């Protein structure tokens, strides 16, 4: 039996986000969705439960609007959910503090989360949580197995993979390759809508960061586009030859 916690992040649907003529992001009307790697984390957590027995608790640090994401997690097999409201923007330290404030009152064996999220890519949360909880981090896993009281993963590194393990409780961050998140059947989606969600508040300070600007980067490319293939080829061959020198 394992008690699994899965950390879920809700982000705006970046693919649908555009920037205006000044380069400012247009955020109104952009729907929220469960962040991709969080789906892998949910799938990994649910698979651990299915294999070893136990329970999966989802935690979202977000806002009142995060209930949709939690319901999606329920439909995928998460048993209980806690939404911590008070999210005001990307600051991994605040997120880590908000999550550890809840974790310290829960019983768990494994905390599963995505290694980096698709909006800011800070990748700080796994290490932060390890430091704040005092539990070992098994980072960037593309497989997880539980053996008695120890967790073993295959860690994907830049140049090599490592087989590493630690005693539970442990924090495990996952890669996008670890699994294919399931598409829940309609009945489960409907049942998920009726399940209660526990709401908690976190009031954290964000004062040490001042955003000077947040604009689309200007492309300084030459953008010399040839619609006539025969004109384009000689020009491009010239460029390739220059760069090959």
């Amino acid at each position, binding site marked *: 039996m394992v008690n699994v916690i899965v950390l879920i992040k809700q982000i705006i649907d970046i693919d649908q986000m555009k920037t205006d003529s000044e380069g400012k992001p247009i955020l109104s009307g952009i729907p929220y969705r469960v962040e991709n790697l969080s789906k892998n984390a949910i799938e990994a957590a649910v698979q651990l439960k299915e294999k070893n027995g136990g329970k999966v608790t989802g935690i979202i640090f977000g806002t009142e609007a995060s209930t949709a994401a939690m319901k999606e997690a329920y439909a995928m097999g998460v048993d209980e959910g806690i939404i911590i409201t008070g999210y005001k923007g990307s600051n991994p330290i605040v997120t880590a503090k908000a999550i550890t404030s809840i974790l310290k009152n829960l019983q768990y064996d494994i905390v599963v989360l995505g290694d980096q999220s698709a*909006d800011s*890519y800070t990748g700080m949360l796994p290490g932060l949580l390890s430091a704040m909880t005092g539990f070992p981090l098994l980072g960037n896993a593309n497989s997880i197995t539980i053996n008695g009281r120890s967790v073993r993963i295959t860690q994907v*590194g830049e140049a090599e993979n490592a087989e*590493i393990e630690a005693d539970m409780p442990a924090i495990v961050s996952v890669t996008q390759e670890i699994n294919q998140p399931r598409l829940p059947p309609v009945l489960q989606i409907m049942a998920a809508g009726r399940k209660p969600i526990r709401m908690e508040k976190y009031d954290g300070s964000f004062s040490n960061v001042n955003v000077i600007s947040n604009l689309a980067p200007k492309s300084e490319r030459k953008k010399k586009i040839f619609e006539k293939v025969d004109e384009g080829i000689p020009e491009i061959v010239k460029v390739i030859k220059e760069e090959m020198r």
Partner: protein
Amino acid sequence: MKALVVSDDINFLKQACTLVNGKAEYDAVYVGEGRVSGVGASTLYTVKKGTPYDAVADGILEIMGNYDIIVAGSTEFGREVAGYIAGKTGYYAATEIFSLEFSNGKAKTKRFFYGGKTVIEEESDAKVFTVAPGVIEAKEFESKPEEKDLPIKPSKVRVNKVVPKNAGGVRLEDAKIIVSVGRGIGSKENISKIEPLVNAVKGELAGSRPVCMDYGWLSEDRQVGLSGKKVSPKLYIALGISGQIQHIAGMRNSKTVIAINKDKNAPIFQECDYGIVGDIFAIVPKIVEELKK
């Protein structure tokens, strides 16, 4: 100001040192094998390859009193160390940065946000930094650092086995020329039609997320993009790549970009220096032929 620069990858270490050089005096921690030169540090701490993040981070915390800031290359290991140190000290971490300035005791940093669609410029009291990979051209610095051992602490993680990935395989981060294919390539078999160009330009073959992850036409380690490799070659040739932001974020730092795509409205044409609107299978053989002349 005094910085400690940390990485388990020699190229990331040099990129991070290049970013810090001139702004602070610095020492370096290298976790790995082989001789380290050209980093410009005053003191070089070397740590045995494969030492877990917590053993290294606790060691750094022991000597942290000598430093004002910690700068880590953003490998998996670098992020774990940086996150752990930020968690233990409570210092703010400015992550995945590609620009760093100090004024009035504050750090001014730039990083990509919204999956690479915007750049956030921030001012903060950050003391921990991670440097985005591939965005800074690593310089070689003359130095004969004093070599020391980092005090290594016990780890809660047991390392059973380390398996090198495809020995002698690709390191797209170091490639000078990259030929990259997107969904427009159509099938795994069609990749062989691109190989003559890869060979003619002495380049490395890469692919977009769908090609490497969704369809598996190329291996995962050849994926360029926000969730893959961040590359900065002299020349990036994008074939049948539409140019989703996910991909652009991985190749934005290429010096020159050539794109070939049959859809003239493809966003890649906004992010290239030279483009041809047309069929890659008709155009690529002609380019190869011309290159041979």
